[in-house]
């Protein structure tokens, strides 16, 4: 009797509040991509300032999304993930220094090198957990950073300016900032789809299962470490692509791309946007980098002039201007309270505000 209403296929996905697949999980990424696809039209031509900021948001979203595979789905808090942005960027920088600018060559090179570095980082870290895992990934990330600063031939501490953006099948396609922007957006979209597919696959289910209970998955016969390591390599390789894009956007490569606080930024993006939901990385990057731009502007250009110092200086006005200047310079003092608000009112990240849902 019940058999007619119970279809196993529809029950394999976690049941969501209200039944059926969550609208938020479908609408949220579509909204994001539509918004960014339309941006150049809103801006009109010539506004490369905003477009460059938007490009950076997309690149950070890509890097954070790759981290989500291991952090959000695999519960591995990697504090060295920015290393892969840096390595991806350096592959482009160093190759360009040697006259190799063709992306058809440098892309597979980046994937291979970042994958290999991820294999190394993963091999020594996936067996550990908690603080130990954080410390190991942090240490290896810093190793990559110091490695880059010691590359005297390629600019050392100062970094390296590219000869130009990458060639795409021998064309200067990426030379135009708007075209580059759309290439970045398309790359992000492709990686979003790719990661969504992986998360929903057999492999993704095992990864999610490990996140739920490592002990149970071991008892089922899954070699947990091998799955973790594989996820690590996939995430590292995809993050390397973010590095390629960043190098092309800035036409500059620097050790600063892989400092530990860049890795922390990636984690903050996921915490803000929502862990274990790939589209969380999209909104998290928009919010974090948006704040990075908006807070200094708000305090130095809008709030500071509201109260002018009295004649001869001093008084409330001077104090006010001083406070605004300090906040504008140290925008992260605002970030702390925002993270607290997210923790209080949007546990699971901003995307939970769009509607309750199960993990995709």
């Amino acid at each position, binding site marked *: 009797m019940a058999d007619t209403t119970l279809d196993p296929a529809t029950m394999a996905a976690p049941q969501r509040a209200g039944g059926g697949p969550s609208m938020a999980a479908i609408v949220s990424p579509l909204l994001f991509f539509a918004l960014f696809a339309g941006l150049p039209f809103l801006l009109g031509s010539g506004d490369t300032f905003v477009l460059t900021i938007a490009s950076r948001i997309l690149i950070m979203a890509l890097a954070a999304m790759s981290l989500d595979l291991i952090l959000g789905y695999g519960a591995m808090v990697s504090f060295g993930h920015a290393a892969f942005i840096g390595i991806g960027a350096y592959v482009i920088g160093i190759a360009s220094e040697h006259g190799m600018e063709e992306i058809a060559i440098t892309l597979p090179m980046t994937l291979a090198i970042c994958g290999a570095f991820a294999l190394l980082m993963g091999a020594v870290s996936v067996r550990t957990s908690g603080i130990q895992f954080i410390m190991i990934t942090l240490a290896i990330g810093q190793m990559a950073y110091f490695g880059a600063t010691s590359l005297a031939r390629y600019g050392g501490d100062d970094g390296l300016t590219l000869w130009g953006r990458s060639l795409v099948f021998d064309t200067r396609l990426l030379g135009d900032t708007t075209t580059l922007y759309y290439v970045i957006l398309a790359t992000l979209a492709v990686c979003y789809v790719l990661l969504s597919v992986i998360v929903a*696959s057999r492999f993704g289910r095992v990864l999610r299962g490990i996140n739920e*209970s490592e002990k149970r998955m071991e008892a089922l016969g899954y070699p947990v470490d091998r799955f973790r390591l594989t996820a690590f390599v996939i995430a590292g390789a995809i993050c390397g692509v973010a590095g390629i894009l960043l190098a092309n956007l800035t036409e500059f490569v620097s050790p600063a791309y892989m400092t530990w606080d860049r890795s922390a930024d990636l984690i903050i993006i996921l915490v803000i946007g929502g862990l274990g939901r790939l589209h969380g990385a999209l909104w998290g990057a928009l919010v974090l980098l948006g704040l990075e731009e908006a807070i200094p502007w708000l305090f130095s250009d809008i709030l500071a002039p509201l109260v002018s110092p009295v004649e001869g200086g001093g008084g409330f006005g001077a104090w006010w201007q001083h406070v605004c200047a300090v906040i504008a310079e140290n925008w992260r003092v605002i970030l702390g309270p925002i993270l607290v608000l997210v923790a209080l009112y949007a546990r699971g990240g901003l995307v939970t505000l769009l509607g309750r849902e199960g993990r995709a």
Partner: protein
Amino acid sequence: MSALVVDGLKKRYGGLTVTDDVSITVEEGEIHAVIGPNGAGKTTLVKQICGDVAPDEGSVSLYGRDVTHYSVHRRAQMGLGRTFQITCLLEGFTVLENVATALQAKRGSSFRFFRPVATERALNDAAFALIARVGLAERAGERVANLSHGEHRKLELAVALATEPKVLLLDEPLAGTGPEEVEPLIVLLGEARKSVPILLIDHDMHAVFSLAHRVTVLVNGRVIATGSPAEIRTNPAVLEAYLGEEGELAHTEAAGA
């Protein structure tokens, strides 16, 4: 050949000897029950068989192969299935997904990255059949976190069966299930036994004595008796150990007579 051979297993925690020279075999087609008072070392024995805990001495063999130094997942891959005394399930997954995840471990590679696993009919149908077998059909789409304690126990059993084990270790599978739910589960275990030999630990003496072909009694980490249910019921050492405890055996004996 014995399905499972535990030989001279010893485990000490500090000054406490939790497993004291334990030897047990499980033969094909049998249910071998291990009973004993709380703290006797039953769970610790299961953990050493599974590889969660390394024994200080002794060996564990599966179908003739010494697996004493094998990892947990390797033993599981070789066909060692188990349930946990303290339920260990994928809480965020649905009932169906829990069982399908278990099936997936034995049916084809899990290093597949592109096909959506939720649409794999073969996995889903087999999972659903097992869920129906333990009486959870109506709950197949429910998240595990929303299940009752008794339902957790049943799912724990379905998941263990889904690993398609060659030897099954059940650590108190009936604990926490309601009185009217126990009988169907006893029937289920009796059926399961035909396809997989079982090492059964339970405090439910009625279940143990109606299912087991052999019973081993563990007290303070030591085997004090092994034999048929009839032999165990009348074994003086066992009666003494149990009468001192709760008098449960005497009770079942009276009920069975």
